[in-house]
């Protein structure tokens, strides 16, 4: 069972990392959320025990670990909120840059850097 969980988490992480390196920003967001799913799966797998539901009064039978369930729920909620936030940022970027690919965003950054560099060199000449 551990192996199945480990394999699934690894595949999710790999797929997420692949998408994270894509140019399309929506794919980047999907990649981030896949990676966070892989972490949540690992969290569930870290306390994988079979048994009764841990409801008081406890019987003698072994109980299943409730902590990982609550951790996974908390992490899921955080993951959902953060994915929503990231999608909003992508939406605003697509309005501001009229594009949703990382290349164009980076290209406009590079253009700004080059302009700054030229301005700096100009000031250098003036200063001397």
């Amino acid at each position: 069972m551990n192996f199945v969980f480990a394999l699934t988490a690894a595949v999710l992480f790999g797929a997420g990392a692949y998408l994270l390196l894509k140019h399309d920003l929506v794919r980047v967001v999907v990649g981030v959320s896949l990676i966070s799913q892989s972490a949540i799966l690992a969290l569930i797998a870290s306390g994988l025990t079979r048994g009764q539901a841990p409801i008081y009064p406890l019987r003698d039978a072994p109980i299943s670990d409730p902590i990982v369930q609550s951790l996974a729920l908390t992490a899921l909620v955080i993951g959902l909120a953060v994915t929503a936030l990231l999608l909003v940022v992508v939406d605003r970027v697509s309005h501001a840059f009229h594009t949703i690919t990382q290349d164009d965003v980076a290209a406009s950054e590079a253009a700004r850097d080059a302009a700054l560099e030229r301005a700096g060199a100009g000031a250098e000449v003036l200063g001397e």
Partner: protein
Amino acid sequence: MTALALALVIPWMAGIVLVALDGRRRLVGWLAIAALGLHLGALVALAIDVVPGRAVRFVTGGWPADVGIVMRADTLGIAFAMISAVMLLAAAVQAVLEGVGERTFPGLVLLLATGLSGLFLTGDVFNFYVFFEIAMTAAYVLTTYGGGRRELGAALVFAAVNLLGSSVFLLAIAGVYRVTGTLAMETISLRMASVEPNAAILIAVGFFIAFGVKLGLFPFHFWLPTVYTGARPAAAAILSGALANIGAYGLLRFGAELLPNESALGATTLILIGGASIVYGGVLAVSRRDVAETLAYSSIGQVGYVLLALGVGGPVGLAAAVLYALVNSLNKTMLFLAVGVRGGLIGAVFAVGALSVAGMPPAVGFLGKLALVHTAIVARSPALVVLLVAGSALSFVYMFQIYQHEFWRGPRPGHRSPWPLQVLPAILALLVLTAGLWPEPLLAVSRDAAAVLSRGGQR
């Protein structure tokens, strides 16, 4: 315990209310500042209890210790919480004086304060993660402050990279729970010694990557310059003065207290990465002309010193790491707040900042460098001393290069800023000088904080 609860509840509640109000109105801004002041007051009250060496500790909801979530305040946590609170307060005052441009800004600063003090004052690794995400989420939105194209691009890079870091952190927590069966830091540090080495090393690497990304250490620094130069000065001051403390605190707490054996095993790697950060940050900072960009690369270099001291370890090394992290936070906030301001006092602020970053006597940065050199001498390593001196020389060059470019070349472009805006960085500069001239309190705090960590390691 009341002070600890108040320190979390005040900014939390105030933040929730103020996020819903229009933060562009002066009143809302000043309310946020008042709440930050109360928050700082609660932390001071807590510090009065904690600093004599009595850690405050309680379990939420009155549960037994291994069931409920442990909140605890020790010298290390309270020192980082207080410096972050002061820096957030300074950045918020600056933003309000300039006129807040976004509805949510004051509320988000309060929520960031909640997340930061929560994670500095918790004794539970998963609770650390939750507060960490509260702080990071507020920071993602704060990075977009200003709402221009550059800010948005910076926020996107910042959020995507740091979410990856958060997931790695969560994976490491899953690993810790798997091998120790608990989430309470005190119990983890007891049980970690008997864990199978391979698993422990993997976990340590996971935590190191997570905090390295946050801190912008050399191989994980790629997002940092874009973000620090893209964001507005107030936002950049918050990111580098308050948020970067998470990385330094996390490395100290998880590296030195929870995983001391693994840190000792990886000491050479830590020192090498720290050295690479110092050289890389210093050289690139020298090559930049833009003030914000120079400061961004300087941040990469400065955190290298913290890692280096952590790598050497021992009471002297850890105390130097704590001291340097606190000093760096103060320096960076002061300088970033001064970036957008014009006027006579700002020249003096930059001079003090340059002295402090380079590690020259009257400023507090001298203490940090002195502690680091002491660490290198205790470690009997001439190579480290050479590295420290070379790093300081680089920071001297880039800081005075900024000074020369900005202040010795005729008037800077732009109008003189109003007095209150100039006075604020000047107050921080006075703080830098005072702490440099009267260093005992800061030295005592960092020594006590290091003692907390090495106690964790010896048990």
